């Protein structure tokens, strides 16, 4: 855990955000949301709704996709994050776990973890070791595979590594992009437990998911994006009971009970 609690408890504020790709394609329109300090907020929506775009805007990687913020503001605590590079986000304590895991396949597990701390500049070996111990406490499986190439891990292990890598930057806000994607139900369950545990240790989480069942069970608050706009938002429990969410994102016939292992969202 980062040892220095900030004077003010920082929260992520996204205000009236507009994002455009290639100067023409509008991907987000006037999106606002807040992730309070220590909270878990879920962002639901179908493919192409703009979930990943929102995360890119926060983490500063829009430019790699020829996208740009054309309106609105993003603040984390006192730090403005709109139009900044990814280093600024990492330094501010906002770290993203990319969709599809994106571990460095040719690098070892250990090197992947080391890479997670690159944005923080030079750090004492003790601090790096403490970070690694924390990751291994979450994911003992990684500790057994430190010298193995990350590309040879199973999908679930790669997701663990991707989360562990982000934790090495000691984030205060973790942006998770579809952590359940392509994983077996048991592994989805395990990842959900870890996210809960990370949050319990004081890290706020913005969780982007198509697996609405998992996301709503973790989150305090949720937003539903549809074609670039926030369609619904509210406390996660309430949202889970609305007919639209149950039908579209929980894959339920309206009126039946929610199955325990909620299926993938329906576009």
């Amino acid at each position, binding site marked *: 855990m980062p040892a220095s609690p900030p004077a003010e408890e920082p929260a992520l504020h996204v205000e009236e955000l507009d994002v455009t790709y290639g100067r023409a394609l509008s991907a987000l329109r006037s999106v606002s949301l807040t992730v309070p300090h220590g909270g878990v907020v879920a962002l639901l929506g179908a493919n192409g709704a703009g979930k990943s775009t929102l995360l890119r805007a926060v*983490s*500063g*990687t829009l*430019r*790699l996709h*020829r996208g740009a913020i054309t309106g609105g503001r993003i603040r984390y605590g006192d730090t403005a994050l709109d139009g900044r*590079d*990814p*280093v600024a*986000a*990492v*330094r501010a304590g906002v*770290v*993203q776990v*990319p969709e599809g895991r*994106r*571990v*460095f*396949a*040719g*690098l070892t597990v250990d*090197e992947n973890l*080391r*890479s*997670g*701390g*690159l*944005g*923080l500049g*030079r750090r004492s070996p003790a601090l790096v070791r403490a970070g690694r111990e924390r990751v291994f406490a979450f994911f003992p499986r990684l500790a057994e595979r430190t010298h193995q*190439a990350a*590309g*040879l*891990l*199973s*999908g679930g292990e790669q997701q663990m590594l991707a989360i562990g*890598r*982000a934790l090495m*930057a000691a984030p205060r806000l973790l942006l998770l992009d579809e952590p359940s994607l392509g994983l077996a139900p048991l592994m989805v369950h395990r990842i959900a437990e870890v996210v809960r545990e990370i949050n319990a240790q004081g890290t706020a989480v913005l969780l982007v998911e198509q697996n609405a069942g998992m996301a709503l069970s973790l989150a305090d608050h949720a937003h539903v994006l549809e074609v670039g706009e926030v369609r619904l938002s509210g406390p996660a429990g309430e949202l889970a009971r609305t007919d639209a969410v149950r039908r579209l994102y929980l894959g339920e016939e309206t009126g039946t009970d929610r199955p325990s292992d909620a299926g993938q969202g329906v576009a």
Partner: protein
Amino acid sequence: MTGLLDNLLNGLALGSVYALVALGFVVIFKASGVLNFAHGSLLLLGGYLTAVWHDDLGFAGALALAVLVTAAVAGALDRLLLQRGEPDPHAAHVQTIVTIGIDIVLVTDLARRIGGDLLSLGDPWGDSVRDLGPVTVADSRLAAVVVSAVVIGAVFALFRFTAWGLSLRAAAEDVEAAALMGVRLSRVRALAWCLAGALAALAAVFLVAFPAPGLERTTGQIALKAFPAAILGGMTSPAGALAGSMLIGLTEALVAGYQSELHVLGEGFGDVAPYAVMVLVLLVRPTGLFGTKGAARV
């Protein structure tokens, strides 16, 4: 038998110098996705600067300064000419073409300055030779092997143990994921170009040392022989570049050494041999010796 040992030693010396150049290609390609066609002109620049400065500064001083200046020029080329505007991972092809333009400008100017001259770099080895058991080797070649081994070892250590090396390898695997970790891509890139420039300047010294006659305006073209070496190695693998360079160096030395026996192939086959080897290897292993796509489980 002595002939064979001589040829092998020559090949080793040539290969280790090519490795300095090929490593530069690989470092630049890994960091920026650019095939640096201006590498030969950087090499020529490093050699030229050493040649003009060695009278005043002595060989060591001139070489050190030339290495630094060439590194700075390479870094500046990347920062000022190639990395323009928005960071764009798809711009590598355009930037590769830009390096051709840079090469033309640099080579033209350096050729104008050098003219028809043969410049000495003032290296301390001269034409002295020594006996190592059954074979006789030029001191300059021994120096080439020793210095290259030390420098290449240092470069490999940089890759493995420094934050820059890790950043470079991570970015080569996945630019966006590396960016999300807070890797400053433009800085990592520029440093990679600096390193490649420094290696090229150093290689120039050994390429024009005895038994080569000296620095000519065409010296930079030797970089073209390191190009198949880098490709042989898979283009993204430093170890592959090293192996490829050794293969090319040995091929060239052996073909030159046994030229009379290879008369069927005509004169000057030594110049073609690197490319012939490259084609043969790529026929068997299309991704190069070490250039696997990376085993991945999804």
